[in-house]
């Protein structure tokens, strides 16, 4: 099969693009897919990556087609705060750059094409070597966040996968260990025990700016490892700057995107506004695209219509999550952010699961805000409305 005769052209071989390939292939194995993968890190990404999800984040369908890409699974996870720790019952799983690539390469009708697109349109893409690929349906999964339409805070992390000289003893992921010193906003350490003598240690910070001071993160990781006697060597490293959304002008974004390729993933602002995690929404978007391709002749326009509907609904559902982000970044002073999170994790488990899946009910929302408010009302009031931030964004786009 030659790549220039594809039914679907996916530009970007990261998480969002790869999941589209997996979902489409799972629904219709005859579909010819070309994935243009630059292999080089995009803005805010690194070569090597780990993406994780809670079992409760995915539909049963998505859980099935994502399974070949899963590298590690755990039966639960923990969170830790200075005065509260708990185990969460939802299973947890991780994909790695390698496991994801291997799963995509195993699909018979998918071609991975190393290369970088210099221009992407609704009918095809221009590659850096001058060649052009045309396809009836073009997906833009290049990962660049449309900053002009979003007001952002940042979740920055550096992760070191360590080969420990002796077993580290950890059995479950700790998705938030906030018992560490607070620096640079809200700080926690995230650990994934991949094997008895292998553990990923990520120093993570919720900061106002996206600058990543590697030395400070490395020191944080080293302190954490040394305190537990995890001597060893670095096997792999990753870093990233994930966006946290405080405001999103989704209407304007999709209006401006209408004539181009179908944006997915980070490119479409499809991420969890509070955690920056993109996998659950990327999986759902992939399902939407796969379903749309079954209903009508495959075209950029038909997939665009389905995606646009899904994305606008999502943005609407995420209103409350963006409010939480505003409260976290604009309402709480950096040292108070930890308290907000600690309070959140004391809530009932089903609510926490719905939070990660982006499915909070109205009752959940009330529960999060009422009772003892996470931040003083006086500080919360100015954060309540998204409109002033949207107005700012519009002004900036106009100039």
């Amino acid at each position, binding site marked *: 099969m030659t790549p220039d005769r594809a039914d679907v052209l996916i530009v970007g071989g990261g998480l969002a693009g790869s999941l589209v390939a997996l979902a489409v292939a799972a629904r219709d194995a005859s579909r010819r897919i070309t994935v243009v993968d630059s292999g080089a890190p995009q803005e805010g990404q690194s070569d090597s990556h780990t993406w994780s999800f809670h079992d409760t984040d995915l539909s049963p369908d998505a859980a099935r087609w994502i399974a070949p890409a899963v590298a590690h699974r755990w039966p639960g996870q923990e969170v830790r705060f200075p005065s509260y720790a708990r185990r969460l019952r939802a299973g947890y799983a991780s994909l790695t750059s390698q496991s994801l690539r291997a799963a995509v390469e195993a699909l018979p009708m998918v071609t991975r094409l190393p290369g970088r697109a210099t221009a992407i349109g609704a009918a095809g893409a221009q590659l850096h070597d001058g060649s052009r690929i045309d396809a009836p349906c073009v997906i833009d999964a290049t990962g660049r966040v449309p900053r002009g339409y979003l007001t952002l805070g940042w979740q920055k992390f550096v992760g070191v996968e360590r080969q420990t000289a*002796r077993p580290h003893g950890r059995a479950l992921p700790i998705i938030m260990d906030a018992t560490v010193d607070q620096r640079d906003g809200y700080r926690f350490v995230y650990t994934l025990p991949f094997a008895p003598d292998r553990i990923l240690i990520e120093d993570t910070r919720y900061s106002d700016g996206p600058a990543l001071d590697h030395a400070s993160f490395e020191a944080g990781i080293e302190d954490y490892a040394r*305190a537990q006697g995890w001597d060893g060597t670095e096997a792999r490293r990753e870093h990233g700057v994930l966006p946290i959304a405080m405001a999103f002008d989704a209407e304007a974004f999709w209006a401006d995107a209408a004539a181009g390729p179908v944006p997915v993933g980070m490119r479409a602002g499809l991420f969890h506004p509070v955690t920056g995690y993109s996998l659950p929404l990327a999986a759902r978007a992939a399902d939407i695209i796969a379903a749309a391709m079954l209903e009508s002749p495959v075209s950029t326009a038909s997939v665009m219509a389905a995606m646009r509907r899904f994305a606008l609904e999502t943005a609407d559902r995420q209103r409350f999550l963006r409010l939480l982000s505003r409260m976290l970044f604009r309402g709480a002073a950096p040292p108070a952010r930890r308290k907000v999170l600690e309070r959140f994790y004391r809530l009932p488990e089903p609510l926490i699961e719905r939070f990660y899946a982006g499915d909070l009910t109205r009752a959940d929302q009330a529960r999060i805000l009422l009772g003892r408010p996470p931040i003083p009302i006086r500080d919360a009031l100015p954060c309540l409305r998204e409109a002033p931030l949207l107005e700012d964004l519009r002004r900036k786009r106009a100039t």
Partner: protein
Amino acid sequence: MARIAFLMPPYRSHAAVHGALAARLAGRGHEVIFVGPPALQPHAQREGAGFQPFRGPAQAGRIGGGPAGFARLLRDTARATRAHALDGPAALRAARADIAVVDEMEPGGSLAADAAGVPRVTLAASLPLRRDPGMPPPYVGWDWREGEDGVRRAEGAWRVSDWLMTAQRRALAEGCRLHGLPVRDRPSDWIGAEGSVAQWIAALDFPRPQPVGPVVGPIRRPVAAAADPPLFDGAPYVFASLGTIAGGRLRLFTVIARAARLAGVNVAVAHCGGLSPAQAAALTAIWPGRIDVRAFFDQLPAIRGAAAVVTHGGLNTVLDAAGFGVPMVALPLGNDQNGIAARLRRAGAAITLSPRRVTPDSLAAAIASVTTDPRWRAALDPARAEIAAAGGADAAADAVEGALR
């Protein structure tokens, strides 16, 4: 051969007991590892054991300092227990421990062992925590009271104690929920299935319906064969020590030195590093040539050779003196020393004085009494006999090995 983990509060008095047991087990071919937060590391090093760290306090909770100090100690205790509950299980797995020896005073260690699925033996280095009828909490200095009245009084005291320990109980409950264990939030809930290996002997205890577990007496390292020359060239002397925690009480040491001069008996003062060289010199100057002030003596020979021991009533010093039949004057300062003093009074085994009210005169009278009246030494005969038969470190090592099978 097994890998044996030791978990305890990071105090020298506890670490010395675990260290002696660890040395005995190492001598039988086992591998011994202290497991704890950074505060335990220097103790592991001194005791010659391996060390497996986990995240937690870098310093031991400080004892003393009035009500504010007490509140701080309760908070520090809870913090250490929480560190054990959260990160202890992974550390025990990392240490590949086949069994854990856990001090009764760090229930978080037992929680960690249960969470990690590591069998454990509890060790009562201090007064046993088991709540037998009428038994007040260890740090209560009440004399024994028979009957219903005594039982009710003890229950009341435990209620207050449980309330004071709320922060630690919370940490234990949280740890249980985190690791899916049934919630047990009182330190006494974590006593091992076979009871605790206990240093404190029945002859000096308040009455209990049955032993708290294998009572082994003092767990010590063997005394070096080449001992130092006798103190004061073999002339009679009193050995005085206020323990490792209260080593800095200059006022009390001064009272002890003056009392010795009044009683006309040499005195060897161990300040455990709590006095500055200048303070130690000032103490010596009270009665030059008759007062020997050092940070540490080779304690067992020093006690064995003494005519009497003036002590804060720490459990280790008291058991060592009792084992040699050396009469005591106890000045209980805190912790379980009040409870120990009450037990010594009941056994008629020591004179106890309040450290706040003691004067050179009253202490000199007490020293004169215990050194001249043979009944004080005779009163220790049952204790001496029990200790001689109890087996010490060897019996403790047997109990640990027994739990391995």
